[in-house]
């Protein structure tokens, strides 16, 4: 009888042949240079939710489960998981993997990593329901929960702040204090702040033989590139120029106008990603007159969301009302749609009168660090002004804006792009508006209830209903405003072969011509 592992090997070997042909013929070679705008705030994958870190960390670290191309969790460092019928016990069997320091990964490393995630993790709430983590043997990890948590696998497989598996001896260290050691197909070489990060192919990488090819962040990761250089180039124009001159081969994102201009350049390939994220306007419910739902509905009615989207995305957008992406499990259909993009100034003025609006100053908070945020605020402010709302825009740098928005005063509306959360599924999105410190600063009992049902219901149908109810409430009470879906364009030189756009530019599977 064939074990699962043997089967995987056989299948993998068969699949490898056509795919890995160039790799086998030439060996891993070449250096690929990718440019991104920001530099990583941390190379401790567990800690940060920043895209700049994710681009690097997901080449270095791996997780027990990872999201596939469609965003669904698949085993990565785990061979699989057995979940007890009561949903309280998760038994993970581990596959063969090696850390970059040469050590073989064992259940002790996994346990230490999960425990650390509960302390420092960017989405540490995932570990909240965990009661105990046991290691019956070197390749088995058993996680026992206090209460059912149907989102557990979704959580530990999310790339948001990945629940990376690191060596046990590193797991004792504090946030951002660890050595960069993972199990991924590339290992960390150097970090030159304000300049670049260099990664190199991990020679002893153990490929996941369960798969034939790459699949999202899971799948078989074949490194055909010897070296990766990830450069931090703050100027968009410089990144584009660098791509054109061949100094860089891959851009994490290229400005949309540039992408349009270069669409027909035979040396370049533009890869459109739609949807990439949500553009939202968060509302502060504790600052009068925002505590009045009627006033919030006036805002909802006044905005021309299409203009906001067209300007803030430079034309790459989709008008979608859902707080989940269409086509995903938790997409709630037409719920709330009539209240999306109303763009009716008369109705807005009527609602303002009904809300007894007395020309109170509305502070619209944006930041100059993310151009989408700034453009959204600037455009929306102009629209609200035109229906007679006394608007003041405050655009600061990111930390100031963020610190401000965590305060209960000093702001009314705040622009935020949510990328990874809707991709993750409903948990992060609903989580934003529920719990002790919801972004709108006033807890909403209905949303809190949706959150409870979502995180504890064992039946998927119940969870779907919770998300649907959440979406209905979001629109009905104008809790926050979803503007639309944002797309991005990743760009490569034509010499980069087999590139498939995804949430990060993936360097495994590709090769250089």
């Amino acid at each position, binding site marked *: 009888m064939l074990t699962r592992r043997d089967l995987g090997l056989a299948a993998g070997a068969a699949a490898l042949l056509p795919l890995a042909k160039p790799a086998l013929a030439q060996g891993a070679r070449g250096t690929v240079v990718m440019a991104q705008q920001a530099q990583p705030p941390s190379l401790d994958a567990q800690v*940060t939710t*920043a895209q700049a*870190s994710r681009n690097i960390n997901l080449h270095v670290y791996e997780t027990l489960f990872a999201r596939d191309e469609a965003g669904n969790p698949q085993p990565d460092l785990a061979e699989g998981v057995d979940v007890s019928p009561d949903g309280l016990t998760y038994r993970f069997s581990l596959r063969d993997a090696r850390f970059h320091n040469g050590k073989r990964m064992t259940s002790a490393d996994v346990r230490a990593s999960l425990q650390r995630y509960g302390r420092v993790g960017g989405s540490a709430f995932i570990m909240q329901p965990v009661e105990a983590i046991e290691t019956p043997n070197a390749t088995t990890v058993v996680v026992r929960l206090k209460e059912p948590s149907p989102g557990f696998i979704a959580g530990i497989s999310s790339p948001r702040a990945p629940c990376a598996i690191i060596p046990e001896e590193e797991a004792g260290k504090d946030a951002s204090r660890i050595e960069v050691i993972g199990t991924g197909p590339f290992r960390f070489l150097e970090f030159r*702040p304000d300049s670049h990060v260099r990664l190199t192919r991990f020679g002893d990488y153990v490929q996941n033989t369960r798969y034939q090819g790459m699949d999202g962040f899971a799948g078989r990761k074949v490194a055909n590139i010897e070296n990766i250089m990830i450069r931090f180039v703050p100027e968009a124009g410089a990144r584009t120029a660098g791509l054109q*001159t061949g*100094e860089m081969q891959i851009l994490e994102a290229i400005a949309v106008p540039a992408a349009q201009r270069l669409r027909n350049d035979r040396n370049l390939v533009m890869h459109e990603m739609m949807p990439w994220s949500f553009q939202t306007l968060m509302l502060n419910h504790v600052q009068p007159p925002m505590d009045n739902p009627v006033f919030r509905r006036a805002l909802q009615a006044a905005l021309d969301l299409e203009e906001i989207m067209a300007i803030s995305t430079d034309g790459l957008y989709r008008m979608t009302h859902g707080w989940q992406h269409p086509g995903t499990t938790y997409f709630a259909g037409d719920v709330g749609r009539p209240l999306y993009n109303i763009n009716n100034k008369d109705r807005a003025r009527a609602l303002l009168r009904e809300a007894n609006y007395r020309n109170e100053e509305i502070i619209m908070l944006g930041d100059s660090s993310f151009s989408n945020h700034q453009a959204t605020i600037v455009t929306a402010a102009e629209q609200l002004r035109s229906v007679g709302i006394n608007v003041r825009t405050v655009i600061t740098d990111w930390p100031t804006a963020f610190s401000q928005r965590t305060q209960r005063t000093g702001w009314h509306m705040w622009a935020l792009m949510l990328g990874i*959360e809707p991709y993750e599924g409903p948990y992060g999105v609903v989580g934003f508006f529920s719990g002790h410190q919801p972004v709108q600063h006033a807890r909403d009992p209905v949303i809190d209830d949706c959150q409870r049902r979502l995180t504890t219901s064992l039946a998927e149908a119940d969870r779907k209903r919770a998300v649907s109810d959440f979406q209905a409430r979001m629109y009905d009470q104008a809790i926050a405003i979803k503007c639309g879906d944002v797309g991005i364009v990743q760009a490569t030189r034509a010499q980069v072969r087999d590139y498939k756009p995804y949430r990060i530019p993936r360097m495994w599977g590709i090769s250089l011509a």
Partner: protein
Amino acid sequence: MLRYAAGRLLAALPVLAIVSLLSFGIVWIVPGDVAVEMAGPTATAEELARLRERLGLTRPWYEQLAGWYGALLRGDLGESILLRQGVAQAIVERLPVTLSLTFTALAIAFVCGTALGVLAAVRAGQAADRVAMGTALVGFSLPDFWLGLVFVYVFAVLLGWLPTGGYVPFSQDPAGWARSMLLPAAALALSQMGLFARMTRAAMLEVLRQDYVRTARAKGMPGWIVIGKHALRNALIPVVTVAGIAAGVLLGGAVVIESVFSLPGVGRLIVGAIQRRDYPVIQGGLLLTATIFVLVNLIVDLLYAALDPRIRHGRR
């Protein structure tokens, strides 16, 4: 000479003490902290609070001030959590970039500026004078970062002659280093070139009237030696004093230019640190930049003394 240098150094100490206090103080009025940056843009308030505690950002300011000065006196500038390295190391790593940029720009500005100034002075009142001074004044008035953008567009994108940005260490590839420095240094240099040209012209006009210039000609010295040796050596004395101030201005200008040309220099480090609230780096970076400025001016003072024997011998 040595005593002169020591005296100047001693006089700089109180200035540096005030500089350190200002460096620390600025950070304390900046809202927000490093946890915001580290947590990432979509972190929730709860996630943030937890991270803040883990990073020790909740300690009272006087504790942090005492800690910072304590470490500073031991020569330790602290550590950046975001950069995964000590502040001193972070700065030392970028110093070559900023110094390359600043001093290449200073060299370009000085050489071109004095050349323009000499030309204008020798041809005073003629068309060449007006053209040279016009150039200087226009250079003086152009925003350097804007010029950088234009340079990138013209020389890197349209013509493809030079890279759009990035830094190549001199030790790795001198030609590459020169190529990487040319555009940013030129953009940075232009304004100070104008300053040098104006200073040089004024000083040269003054010097050319002097009797010793006539003496040099009476000795049968050819024109270029009279101008380039006898007159210029004297005219440079006031010009060199400006070099100290110019170095400071360039150091400031480097901040934006480094960003335009994606150069990993100290300026971008500090601006990045300000934007990301990396307190130890802001403090250390400001302190160090100011110290460099003080040192450069010290060097200029010494250079001044070297150029003018009258100062060297303490007669002034």
